[in-house]
């Protein structure tokens, strides 16, 4: 037990490698992909080779079995170049691979995880429905047992990776009248009978990531695709989200870092009143605040990553990190765009895209308001 802020050598090496990959391979095409709403299939093959899609999968199933802090560092570095790619990556890792590894049957783990880990298959997570967002317990999708199969009916909305994913962790009611205790978790392959995907959503940001609705119309999957036991679905979903919030916090930190870098570069270069605008206190102090809030967001995120899975405070720390990092990143993008002046409002400048991309971080995987409920519940119990 000690306070030691050093990353170990392995973490530093991996972070540097991902940073290089992100700067060389991801950043150059990002503006274009965003403009064209184009999902970068080829890059995911490369990311699979680097081990980035099976970070939380153990080596036995083809993953790299990284600790959560290392995972957070990877998400941060990817988000710094492309928030859209980082969310595709974090969804595959955090809310698809992780619950399958944690709660899946041996058969499912052996047959599915290696495909996800290699990048050959991308994963998704179906919890939200048109009528149930924060109130996940109100979901309407059902699953009933029929012989050695489960049959799902319903729909899931705002699903990241919907059109590109091959496997989805899906929550459905096996006992519709039992509230959250009637929810169970399943793994649904995209080629299952009765499964289909709607048209891609037009989003404000993260446009090179794919988001759409999943439809289950008498969708049949093998009995072995149940996660843990019947009725455990809500717990699985909450555990998954507790954990994945560290990933979204890291994503927000990566975006915040980039917004700061862009602001620093612009402020040092742009001249008004005969000197760089960075020499004006109004601008310099914005940058000081952005840098300080970034340090705070990063500290909360790394602390939550280190605490993940250890002890009763882990969920609160993850929610605090997600809440703070996402709100701070929104402020940072706002201020960075402000520093860019009129140029920041032009899509020629990266900050315009970041400003759109960052907006969702206070919404998905639990809105800020839901995080506050989680935190308060811990503190007031």
């Amino acid at each position, binding site marked *: *037990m000690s*306070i*030691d802020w050093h990353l170990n050598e392995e973490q530093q090496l991996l972070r540097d490698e991902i940073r290089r990959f992100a700067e060389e391979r991801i950043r150059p095409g990002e503006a274009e992909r965003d403009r064209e709403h184009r999902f970068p299939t080829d890059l995911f093959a490369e990311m699979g080779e680097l081990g980035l899609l099976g970070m939380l999968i153990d080596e036995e199933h083809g993953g790299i079995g990284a600790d959560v802090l290392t995972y957070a560092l990877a998400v941060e570095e990817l988000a710094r170049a492309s928030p859209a790619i980082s969310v595709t990556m974090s969804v595959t890792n955090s809310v698809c691979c992780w619950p399958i590894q944690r709660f899946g049957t041996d058969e499912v783990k052996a047959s599915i995880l290696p495909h996800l880990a290699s990048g050959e298959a991308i994963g998704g997570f179906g919890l939200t429905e048109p009528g149930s967002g924060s109130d996940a317990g109100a979901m309407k999708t059902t699953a009933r047992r029929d012989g050695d199969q489960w049959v799902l009916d319903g729909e899931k909305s705002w699903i990241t990776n919907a059109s590109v994913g091959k496997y989805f962790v899906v929550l459905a009611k096996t006992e519709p009248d039992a509230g959250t205790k009637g929810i169970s978790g399943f793994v649904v392959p995209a080629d299952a009978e009765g499964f289909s995907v709607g048209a891609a959503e037009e989003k404000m940001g993260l446009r090179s990531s794919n988001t759409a609705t999943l439809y289950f119309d008498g969708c049949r999957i093998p009995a072995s695709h149940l996660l843990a036991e019947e009725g455990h679905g809500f717990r699985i979903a909450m555990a998954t989200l507790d954990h994945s919030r560290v990933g979204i916090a890291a994503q927000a930190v990566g975006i915040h870092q980039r917004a700061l870098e862009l602001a620093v570069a612009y402020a040092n270069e742009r001249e008004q009143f005969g000197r760089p605008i960075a020499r004006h206190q109004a601008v310099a102090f914005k940058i000081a605040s952005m*840098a300080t809030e970034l340090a705070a967001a990063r500290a*909360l995120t790394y602390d939550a990553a280190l605490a993940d899975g250890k002890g009763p405070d882990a969920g*609160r720390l993850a929610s*605090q990190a997600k809440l703070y990092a996402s709100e701070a990143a929104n402020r940072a993008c706002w201020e960075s765009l402000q520093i860019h002046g009129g140029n920041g409002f032009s899509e020629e400048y990266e900050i315009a895209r970041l400003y759109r991309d960052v907006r969702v971080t206070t919404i998905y995987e639990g809105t800020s308001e839901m995080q*506050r409920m989680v935190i308060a519940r811990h503190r*007031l119990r």
Partner: protein
Amino acid sequence: MEIQLSDEQKLLRDEVRRFAEEVVRPIAKEIDAEGRFPRAEILQAGEMGLSGVSVPEEWGGAGMNAVSYALVIEEISRVCGSTGVILSVNNSLFCDPVLAFGNDAQKDRFLRPVASGEKVGCFGLTEPGAGSDASALRTTAVRDGDDYVINGNKVFITNGTEADVALIFATVDPEKKHKGITAFVVEADTPGYSHGIHEYKLGVNGSGTTELAFQDMRLSADHRLGEEGDGFKIAMATLDGGRIGIAAQAVGIAQGAFEESVAYAKEREQFGKPISTFQAIQHYIADMSTELDAARLLTWKAAWAKENQKRYSLEAAQAKLFASEIAQRVTNSAVQIHGGYGYIREYNVERYFRDARITEIYEGTSEIQKMVIADWVLNKS
């Protein structure tokens, strides 16, 4: 990376918390109301090693590291902001610079009695016309044979009414601006040294804040800390460390206010149920918890960097800026949660709210911290 207190640090924290609860809490309200310096309790804290936490045992201190020091200041400030700042000044602004820049004879004569808790120290930099712009100070030190003759005035000197020994700054040549500034250690019974009466303040009202006046005060050269002209460097280095103490003080004040708020919210009933069951109150608690944790992490990070001889002036400025500003918000929310009772002196949060305010001002205003941070971020990284 690891962010866990060691067993030794936990023991220290528990021991200091017990002392704070048993000895300091009972007098906190009274010293604030009466503007009384808690001399007996400070000497008692000194006996426990709390006046020279990071001073090696050979010079009378407790020989602990900077994180331990932050824990001490947090725990004391959690019950009493005045006592917190008194100890912070003793440690950070007197012991640290004498330890870092003094020769052995000076350490023996000036450091040992303060570090071991027999005497109280203070730090005289600010003047009526030189606050943030410390290099504009006008106190003069004129060489006269082997001696210096000092004339001038210092204001807002914490511990000033009680200090037995002071670290002061004067210029040997005002033309040289900051390069003329020189540091001296002076005992309060030196002829020509005098202090004013206690300033009645908005908060931290027990900290013995007053003016110092030097009238033809003659000091032999062995009172000089470092060389002529080293004073500005000494002052700046001292304030870097002092900021960790003030950050820890702010965290402690916020922690105290947070705990009072949680207890009050659970107990106070309105509309037939505890106010903690209302979302508005829960969300205050969630934000307080989140910002408090972030501030503590930044404080520990700066302390860790200091004890590992890393650069820490950026980290200390960020910790101080962030912690002092969240202390203001957290104590404000604490008063709000307490409603009318929060505005009444009988309730501790009224005092916490007033005590927090100065943390944004002393040892470098928030604006000075932002100048320091912006300089690092814009020019040095």
